[in-house]
């Protein structure tokens, strides 16, 4: 799944470490989310969206074709 975490992070001038600390995950998880290698759980997605003050849909791009829907 593609995400806009990096865009939002850079816009807010937040480092990967700071975001990881805020949502209680490791920095490696943030890197994997930004690269699209790992899909966040609903709880983590909610925490990240809350951190940036936006909706989940604005951060996580749901591709229907990719998910075979």
């Amino acid at each position, binding site marked *: 799944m593609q995400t806009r975490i990096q865009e939002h992070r850079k816009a807010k001038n937040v480092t990967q470490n700071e975001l990881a600390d805020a949502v209680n*995950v490791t920095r490696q998880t943030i890197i994997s989310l930004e690269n699209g290698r790992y899909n966040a759980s609903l709880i983590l997605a909610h925490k990240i969206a809350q951190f940036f003050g936006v909706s989940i849909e604005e951060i996580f791009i749901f591709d229907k074709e990719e998910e075979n829907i």
Partner: protein
Amino acid sequence: MIGLFCESKASNNEEYKKVIKSRMNVMLLIFAIGCVTLAVALLAEFLWTVNIKEQMLGVYTGLGTGLIVGGAILWVRNLRILKDEEKLKQNRLNCTDERILEISNKAYRVATFVLLISLYAVGLIGGLFYPALVKVLLFLVCAFLLAYMIAYRIYEKQM
């Protein structure tokens, strides 16, 4: 190896301290099991006069010593984590991070598959020379599948 047996839902260091303390108790239990194993081996050899093979005596004493040393080292390691807030936080993240836990679950699945294949292969080949081995390995596979089914039913009711 990060996620092996360390899954936790602690959301802060204070909650995680309780997890570490209970983990230290498990380490003490491992230490005690090691002592019992070593004691049984030594008593069997010197006091009970059981006719124990030299090789098996070595296995029991090695296993006992390994459990004692392993338990003690892990107990000290957890104590050091408990006293250092930064290490505690890092350790907590490694045991609560959902990605690490998913990696761990996937690794478990692969390891379980390899274990079952290995048990079957050892039973098949070893059974030609030691028929009792087939029975033991079949019992282990059945015990594993039974434990899986029971655990599945329990978690099915919880979710």
